[in-house]
C-alpha cells in the first residue's frame, strides 16, 4: 500500500484569482462584555470566524471563560452538543490589537456606557478607531438600541458603511433582528446585511431610524407601567405577569421579561428615549431605578424583580405559576 501524503490544499485551487470570496468569513467585535460574547456565539455558531477586541489579556481570558460557561449552560439545557461547543470556540479569537480587525467583512461595536451621552461619544470613538484598521468595504455596525446610527456615522470617512443591527440577545432563539439603516447607508451595505442576517438564520425587520426601534420602545413603557401598578398595590408581580402570559398569551410577563433583558439596560433605554422624545411614558420608574442602584439587575445578578439560581431558574416561584 502506498504512503498517504499530506499537502497544503491551496495548491489545488482551480484558479486562485477567480476564487469567490465568501460573503462573510470573518466578523469583528469590539468589546466582549455580555453583548459582545452573545454576538460572538451567535456568529461563530453559523461557521463564521470571529475576532474580538478587548482592552487586556485578562479581559480576553475572562471573556473566553464566560463564553465557555454560556455554552455549557446551553448544553445543559439541551440546546447544543459538546462537539458544537468545541467548533464554536475554535472559531473565536480574542486580541488586544485592533489591526487584527483587518480582513473582517463586518465589525460590531459592542461597548456600552452608563448614559446615552457618554455612549454616543464612546461609540463614535470606537467607530473611528475601527475605520482606521479595516478594509474600505468593511461594514461597521452598532448593536445599540437608542443611539441614532446617522449621528454616529458622521465621524466616519465613509458614512455609507454604518448600520445599526439590534439582536434581541435576551432571547437568543428569537428569529428576528431589528435593523436600522442610517441616512447615508449604501444599497450595497443594505444588501450585504440582508445576507448576513439570513446566514445567521434570522429574518430582518427594517426599522426607520428612531431611537428604541420597535422592541425597546414598546417594551420599556410596559415595564414602567407594570412597576407603577405594583406600587399602587393593584396586584402582585406574579399576578401581573400571569395576566399577561396566561391572559394575553405573551411568552413572559413584564417583570420576568425585565429580569431577562437586564434592568440596567431597560433604564438606559428609558433614559435615552425620554431624552429623545420627552414623553413622560419613557420617564424611568422609581422602582426600576432603586433596583439598579442596588445592583439588582435581573438574572445576571441572580436578583431583579425575582430571584434566580445560577442556572437561571427562578427561586421561590409560587405553585400556581
Amino acid at each position, binding site marked *: *500500500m*502506498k504512503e*498517504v*501524503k*499530506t*499537502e*497544503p*490544499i*491551496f*495548491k*489545488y*485551487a*482551480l484558479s486562485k484569482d477567480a*476564487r*469567490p470570496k*465568501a460573503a462573510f*468569513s470573518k466578523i469583528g467585535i469590539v468589546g466582549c462584555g455580555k453583548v459582545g460574547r452573545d454576538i460572538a456565539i451567535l456568529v461563530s455558531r453559523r*461557521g*463564521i470566524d470571529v475576532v474580538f477586541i478587548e482592552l487586556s489579556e485578562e479581559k480576553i481570558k475572562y471573556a473566553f471563560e464566560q463564553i465557555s460557561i454560556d455554552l455549557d449552560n446551553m448544553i445543559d*439545557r*439541551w*440546546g*447544543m*452538543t459538546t462537539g458544537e461547543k468545541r*467548533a464554536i470556540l*475554535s*472559531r473565536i479569537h480574542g486580541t488586544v490589537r485592533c489591526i487584527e480587525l483587518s480582513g473582517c467583512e463586518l465589525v460590531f461595536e459592542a461597548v456600552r456606557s452608563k448614559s446615552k451621552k457618554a455612549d454616543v461619544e464612546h461609540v463614535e470613538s470606537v467607530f473611528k478607531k475601527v475605520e482606521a484598521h479595516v478594509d474600505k468595504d468593511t461594514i461597521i455596525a452598532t448593536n445599540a438600541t437608542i443611539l441614532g446610527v446617522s449621528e454616529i456615522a458622521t465621524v466616519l470617512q465613509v458614512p455609507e458603511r454604518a448600520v445599526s443591527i439590534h439582536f434581541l440577545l435576551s432571547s437568543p*432563539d428569537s428569529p428576528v433582528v431589528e435593523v436600522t439603516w442610517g441616512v447615508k447607508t449604501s444599497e450595497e451595505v443594505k444588501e450585504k446585511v440582508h445576507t448576513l442576517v439570513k446566514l445567521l438564520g434570522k429574518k430582518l425587520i427594517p426599522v426607520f431610524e428612531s431611537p428604541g426601534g420597535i422592541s425597546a420602545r414598546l417594551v420599556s413603557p410596559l415595564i414602567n407601567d407594570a412597576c407603577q401598578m405594583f406600587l399602587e398595590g393593584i396586584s402582585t408581580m406574579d399576578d401581573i405577569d400571569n395576566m399577561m402570559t396566561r391572559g394575553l398569551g405573551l411568552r413572559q410577563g413584564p417583570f420576568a421579561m425585565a429580569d431577562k433583558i437586564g434592568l440596567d439596560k431597560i433604564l438606559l433605554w428609558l433614559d435615552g428615549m425620554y431624552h429623545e422624545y420627552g414623553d413622560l411614558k419613557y420617564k424611568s420608574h422609581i422602582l426600576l431605578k432603586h433596583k439598579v442602584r442596588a445592583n439588582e439587575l435581573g438574572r445576571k445578578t441572580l436578583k431583579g424583580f425575582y430571584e434566580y439560581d445560577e442556572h437561571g*431558574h427562578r427561586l421561590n416561584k409560587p405553585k400556581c405559576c
Partner: protein
Amino acid sequence: MNILVLNCGSSSIKYQLFDIKNKIVKAKGLVDKIGMQGASLTNSRNDGDKVILEGEIIDHQIGIEYVLGVLTSEEHGSINELAEINAVGHRVVHGAEKFNSSVLITNDVITQMENCVELAPLHNPPNLKGIYAMKQLLPEVPQCGVFDTAFHQTMPAHSYLYALPYSLYKKHGIRRYGFHGASHRYVSKRACEILGVNYNEQKIITCHLGNGASIAAIDKGKSVDTSMGLTPVEGLMMGTRVGDVDAGALTFIMGKEEISYNQLNTLVNKHSGVLGISGVSSDMREIGEAAKDGNDRAKLALDMYAYRVKKYIGSYSAVLGGADIIIFTGGIGENAVDIRENSLNNLEYMGVELNSELNKTVYSTETIISTDNSRVKVMVIPTNEELVIAQDTFDIVSSK
C-alpha cells in the same frame, strides 16, 4: 462516461467519480470540516494513490472547487481536464411530494427544491449549495438530483398519513416521506439479482442501519411503508436521534425542562438515541466495547436498539403478509453481528432461521446469512447509494 456524484452535508462533501459504463470508481473522497478549523480533503484514486489536503475550506463552493482541482491535478488526478466530467449527480435528502423519481436539474427544479427546504432544514440547504456551486463551476454540464424520499412515494395513503387532522396534510404536507430511498432501492434489487428471483414478485424488508437508520417494507418492487417519517427523527433508535417517542412526552419535557422548540429539536436529534441511553458514545463499536467491559447502560442501549429493529421487522412482516427476504445494510447492519443476531432472535415462527455461525463471520460482504432451510432469506448487502445516483444520472442524461 464520467459521472461525478456529490453528497453535500452540513459541513462535509462526499464524492465519487464514476466511469459509469465500466462501473469503475476512478476516485472518491471526503471534504471534511467545511467552515471550521482543521478542514481537509481526502482523495483516494483507484490505483491506491491517497492524499490528504489540509487548509482553509470556507464553504461548499470552495470545497467543490478543490475537489475539481485535485481530480484534474497532475499528481493525484484521475482526469486531465474538467471537460471529461460528463454529468454530475447530487444526493438530495427531501423531495417532498414533488419528486417521485430522479430528475434533471433545471432552474424550475431548483425553485421546487428550494420550496422543500422547510421540510428538511438541516439537509436540503447543503444539498442545494452543491448544486449552486456546480452550476457556477461547470455551467454546461448536466446535473441530476436523486432524492432520498422518492423511492417511498409509492406508499399508500393509509401508510403515509399520520392520524393528525387531515387539514394539516393538505396545508403543510405533514405526512410520512421516508428516507434512505436510494439505499433501500439498491440493496433490495441487488438481493434479487444475487438470489436470481424476480424483484417484482418479492416481499422484502430492508434494514438500513447506519448512524441514521430506517427500515422499509417493499412489496413487488414498491416501498409500501418505512420507519422514518416527515423528518429522519422517527422510527428506529439511532446514534443520537430518538426514533419513536410519545408526542405527549415531548410537550411534557418542554414544560418540565422549560426549554424552547429549538432546544427540543437538539434534544431529540443530538442528545438521544444510543448516545442518550448509554451516555458513552453514538458509535456502536465503542458501545460494544463498553458493554463488554460491563457497562450496563451500554448493554441496555444495544438491547433497545435490537429490540426496535425486531419490532419493525415483525410489524412489516404483518404489513407484507410475511417476508421472502430480509436485508441488513449500512455501517451497523453490515458489521454489527450481535445486532443482527438479536434482532432476528425467535423469529422462526415467521420462517427466519439465521445461520449464527456464518453470521459471526460476515462483515460488509454480500452474503446469505440464513440457513439453507430458512423460508426467509436473510442477507447482508453493503449499500452503494453513490452507484444508484451515478446510474440514475446516466439514465437521465442518456435519454435526453
